[in-house]
């Protein structure tokens, strides 16, 4: 079984035992066993299912790339592209807006405003999924309050669309970005601005040569994080658009709940694997950025 953490107890045995806490590694054992069973096992099953095929006639199992290949074709590819497009668009917008709001908060002198915005962001960043979908149905849905007051339907507004989803996603992505960028902006030392001024830089030159380059890793890291968050989102879209916007999470759910042809589970597994690969890439970009910004800003 390709459980990634199954080697853990062995590794722990090899750890040099320190005089002071001889069996401290035992504390980590339950966690590692749990992770192997409840995370390693399903992920292993997913990988296995994504690359093998059971022959119904003989019962034999063979390695195959056909599921992965199918998951990158036709409607599946469209759904992957749709998810990437939606996530990228919302992440870009949320990165910009979140940073602007964070800068407004950081430069304001009132501690109360700062606390209020941070607490609100903490709540809203965790406010997603089903409740968020319904709040927007009540606001911008077909009989939503704002839709009726603004006669938006006659203007062609449709919440159950790509644009509608983007507007909703921003509702939790922007606060998430505020939470990410406030510490980064706080880390921008006043000495840097003053040193830049002292060296003759105008405010614009400071941002161009110092502020933005120093913030870049944090902001890029934030963007990547938002992308991953939007990419993995499923509940909001499921409650709202059903199948009208092609998203990979919706496609996987459809395949799993048997809404489509039987025998599609393996494609669902392959699509899941695609998602894991994309999310893994996202993390691979995020972590080094995160490390760099930590070094610069703390």
């Amino acid at each position: 079984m390709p459980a990634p953490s199954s080697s853990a107890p062995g590794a722990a045995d090899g750890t040099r035992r320190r005089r002071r806490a001889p069996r401290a590694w035992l504390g980590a054992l339950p966690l590692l066993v749990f992770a192997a069973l409840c995370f390693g096992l399903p992920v292993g099953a997913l990988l296995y299912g994504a690359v093998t095929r059971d022959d119904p006639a003989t019962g034999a199992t063979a390695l195959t790339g056909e599921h992965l290949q199918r998951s990158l074709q036709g409607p599946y590819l469209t759904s992957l592209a749709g998810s990437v497009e939606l996530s990228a668009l919302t992440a870009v917008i949320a990165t910009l807006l979140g940073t602007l709001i964070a800068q407004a908060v950081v430069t304001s002198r009132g501690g109360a405003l700062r606390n209020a915005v941070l607490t609100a962001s903490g709540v809203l960043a965790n406010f997603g999924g089903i409740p968020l979908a319904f709040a927007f149905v009540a606001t911008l849905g077909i009989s939503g309050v704002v839709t009726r007051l603004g006669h938006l339907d006659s203007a062609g507004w449709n919440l159950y669309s790509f644009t509608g989803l983007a507007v909703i996603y921003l509702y939790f992505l922007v606060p998430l970005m505020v939470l990410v960028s406030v510490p980064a902006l706080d880390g921008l030392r006043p000495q840097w601005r003053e040193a830049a001024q002292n060296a003759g830089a105008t405010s614009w030159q400071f941002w161009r040569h110092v502020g933005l380059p120093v913030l870049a890793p944090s902001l890029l890291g934030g963007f990547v994080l938002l992308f991953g968050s939007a990419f993995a989102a499923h509940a909001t879209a499921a409650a709202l658009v059903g199948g009208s916007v092609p998203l990979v999470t919706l496609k996987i759910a459809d395949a799993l709940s048997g809404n489509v042809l039987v025998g599609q589970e393996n494609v669902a597994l392959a699509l899941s694997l695609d998602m894991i690969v994309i999310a893994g890439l996202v993390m691979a970009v995020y972590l080094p950025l995160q490390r760099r910004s930590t070094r610069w800003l703390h």
Partner: protein
Amino acid sequence: MAALTPTAAPAPGGTPRRARDPKAVRVRARRRPRVWRGAVLALAGLYFLVPLLSSFVFTVHTPGQGVSFAAYTGILSAEGFTRSLLLSLGLAAATILLALLLAVPALVGVRLGAPRLRPLVEIVCMLPLVVPPIALVTGVTTVLRWGPDHLSRTPLYQTFLAVQNESFPVVLVLAYTVLALPFVYRSLDAGLRAVDVPTLVEAARNCGASRLYVILRVILPNLRSSLAGASFLTLALVLGEYTIASLLGFRPFAVWIVSVSGAQARMSVAVSLLSLLITWALLLLLSRAGTRAASATPAPPAPSGTSASLTSPASGKE
């Protein structure tokens, strides 16, 4: 002029002394960012408040019929509400307990005596971030399907059935614990970073305390606010989780809201709004507790500290 100084205190730019030209220029230059800031915050406030206000209006006002609070009063008696909410709360409690029981000994142990294990523990805890809930659930379904296929004649089969018990699906607790691990890890790790565990332990041992006593009475109290943060995040995650529960065919709170939305749209919005308010209240409570802890020990300011611990990628809301 000297007499003017004390009265001129909080509002620079407001006093007549500023009448001279160059100063006026400076005052104007300072105002510009304030206008900009106000505009940004006002627009953001609008975007974030309008859905909440409209949701409320939507639930109490029906065009042509006037105002009614039936959507709220009817919640308690609604079919399935109590059961699904209790199920979600039970799942949340079990998840928090399991996640903390797994993570606290692991993190403390690693800091105390097995630093070489630390990267492994970190990777294991952060890996779930790379696996979106929908992907995890496909894996879980695959594993669960093995039960009837391969294990029907072994005692393990009973275990498979037990974890899928409709009245309390343990499988959800396990899956949610996996999803919660990254947040729990980050929150605890940040807390442990702030206290020098080995020194604390040595100091307490030096005072004659046993190792268990040290962990229970010295380390855990110092981790109070990060334990609270981890619990809050886990609670929010479990209460809002829809993807895994619905695809595995269980019916906790979020799934219930969707199931009533067709017949009772108003009530589903009302419940959504309430769940947001409850989350908000919990967070305020938490940051209050954090403030108290912070005033006792020189720690970073609590509200931002708490919120920072909530800064988590791909939070498990889906």
